[in-house]
């Protein structure tokens, strides 16, 4: 892998606390000296956060699709009727 990708892998290992103590301390010393490296670390952490949000959004879309199917398809009518009984006092 090219150098930049190896660095991403190293930062990932650091973020996920997989680095041996010696490598971790060495990298932390580099962060103090190299602001760009520090910025790349922050950006990479932001990426993981965005991936998590993206995944959650996709799962939510799927759950909404299934719910929509249940409440609109005639094949699930009896199930929906049963559910609606629990809310019979709803206006």
């Amino acid at each position, binding site marked *: 892998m090219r150098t930049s990708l190896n660095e*991403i892998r190293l930062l990932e290992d650091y973020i996920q606390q997989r680095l041996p103590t010696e490598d971790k301390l060495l990298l932390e010393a580099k962060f103090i000296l190299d602001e760009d490296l520090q910025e790349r670390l922050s950006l990479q952490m932001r990426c993981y956060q965005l991936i998590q*949000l993206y995944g959650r959004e996709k799962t939510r879309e799927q759950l909404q699709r299934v719910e929509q199917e249940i409440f609109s398809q005639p094949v699930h009518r009896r199930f929906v009727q049963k559910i609606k009984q629990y809310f019979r006092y*709803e206006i």
Partner: protein
Amino acid sequence: MEVLAQISEPELISDAACLQLYKKVFPSVAQYIGKRGGTLEEAKDVFQDALLIYYERIQSGSTSIRDTEKGYIFGISKHLWIRRFKQQVMMEPLGDQWDVPETKEETTADRLIMQMLKQTGERCMQLLKSFYYDRLDMLALAKRFGFASERSATVQKFKCLEKIRDFVKKNKLQYEDLIK
């Protein structure tokens, strides 16, 4: 039989499995919320959040909860319902047995950058999601995305991460300006 436990690979839950979960657990949740004056829409919202939490728990390897699927999802739903109405918490404390995580609210900045990412790097986002969110292993990832080997998939994963990172950096100023 436990629905998600039947999935051999930690892949996305199928629509069919999802439907089974609705049929299996939603009636109890609806009944619980209906009895406490909640509406059908509220019950649907609570149940969706509970399924999302359950799905993420399964993906993160909490296998023990698979054994009590129905009870677990119902427990989360109950907890979420009580959390919605804090007054009820005072009357009916549930304790911390369910340890339901607070879901982070999506910010305007998140939504904007996500929108841009979907337009320019959707495939990379799909690949990264499969690894970091769905927690597919490299072999399954290679298979799903048509890579010749686990090594190619690993390299591509880091390339995608680099692409997204550079994209976020490049557009950081732009979306930060937009939300000011």
